[in-house]
């Protein structure tokens, strides 16, 4: 196991700052990309369920173009296309845009499914009971929609965190990039990659568990087991 020799770990702990910097970049990129993807997801999810044919077509075009081509290709496309359009952006911003648009397409599908799952009668029923539109949304529609949307949304967030490692391919200074360049200069791949894996695991695993928990809860409530509670 000389790939994981003690002195290599020691070198890694001496340079811990590099990894913390990378984690910071990963967190900020993933966070902003998540916000962008949520915004795009809500927008295109609403377009997909709108009564306007053109809105639905635009949404379908966006979702199918993004979902049927690789994120890597999209990122490289953005990375090289923007200079052709005389737009120069810092690499992390390219990453945020690429990740945001990519996961926005998946979020759009999540929101579309959420909106379509709530029967239109629910809104009418709420209104007929004297609720205002806002109250009906707040107390009737959104709680049901959240139950359906939250688990797949959280899974998308996990996928986004993992995919933010794509910044390493365009020298974006994220966790993966720092680990890669650190181990390229020292040759200590084992400790660097294992550490980075642990960090990603501690970010993704709890979120995935949370999604699973919500999924099971909503499955139970829909099958009526906890109706009495």
């Amino acid at each position, binding site marked *: 196991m000389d*790939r994981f020799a003690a002195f290599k770990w020691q070198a890694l702990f001496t340079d811990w700052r590099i990894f913390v910097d990378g984690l910071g970049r990963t967190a900020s990129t993933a966070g902003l990309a998540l916000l962008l993807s949520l915004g795009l997801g809500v927008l295109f999810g609403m377009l997909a369920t709108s009564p306007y044919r053109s809105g639905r077509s635009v949404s379908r075009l966006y979702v*199918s*173009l993004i*979902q*049927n*081509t*690789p*994120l*890597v*290709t999209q990122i*490289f*496309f953005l990375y*090289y*296309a923007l200079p*052709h359009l005389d737009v120069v952006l810092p690499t992390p911003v390219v990453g945020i845009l690429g990740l945001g648009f990519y996961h926005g397409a998946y979020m759009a599908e999540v929101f579309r499914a959420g909106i379509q799952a709530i029967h239109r009668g629910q809104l009418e029923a709420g209104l007929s009971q004297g609720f205002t539109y806002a109250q009906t949304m707040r107390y009737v529609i959104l709680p049901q929609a959240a139950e359906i949307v939250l688990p797949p949304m959280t899974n998308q967030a996990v996928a986004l965190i*993992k*995919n*933010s*490692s*794509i910044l*390493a*391919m365009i020298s974006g200074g994220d966790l*993966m990039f720092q*680990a*890669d360049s650190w*181990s390229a200069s020292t040759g200590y*791949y*084992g400790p660097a*990659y294992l550490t*980075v*894996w642990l960090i*990603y*695991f501690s970010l*993704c*695993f709890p979120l*995935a568990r949370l999604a699973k928990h919500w999924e099971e809860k909503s499955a139970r409530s829909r099958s009526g087991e906890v109706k009495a509670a």
Partner: protein
Amino acid sequence: MIEELLALAQWHNLRFLWQGLAVTLQISVLTIIFSFLLGTVLGVMRYSGHWLLSRLAAVYVEGFRSSPLILLVLLFRFTTPLKPVNSGTLAMSLFTAAIVAEVVRGGLNAVDKGQWEAARSQGFSWIQILRYVVLPQALRKMIPPLIGQFITVVKDTSYVWVTGVEELTGKGVIILGQYGTASQFFAIFGLIGLIYYLLCWGLQRFGLHQERRMSWLTM
């Protein structure tokens, strides 16, 4: 602009991209086969409820699922003696197997438990029930998420470019070094995007077809 595109549209450039597509297809097909086999075994292990086997499968699944693919691709590139294209295929197979395992487990869980009792009362053994009764029924449930995952595999082959394997995206980026004008750039990436789109679309149609073909397996 026309001259730029004509300069690009030459036989040797198309062949260059075709070579990349062949690598993309090779990695995709091998990954789909390996991950399906390993994922099925892991999914059955986790489903079995065996105290050791199900825990081993759970550790495998959660461990690989929580890692970015690019990390595995790089890790296997630098810690195995394999050629980059093979270490990439290995990394992708092990990663995808974790996701396939969850799909298999979900499909198995969806099969009514009464099927087990019915088959056991007919004298089937555990393996026989799984092989002849439960897995075929689970398979139909599994097709949509499996196809979704295999589409992801085709797209994710582009991650292997990080280790210098010249698959389709890699070939496109390389060709840009020689043909760097705006129109050439958009033509190259448009073509590459179209190829990926057709591959993914074809896979999706295939999945729908299979699902319909298996509709006799009612659930």
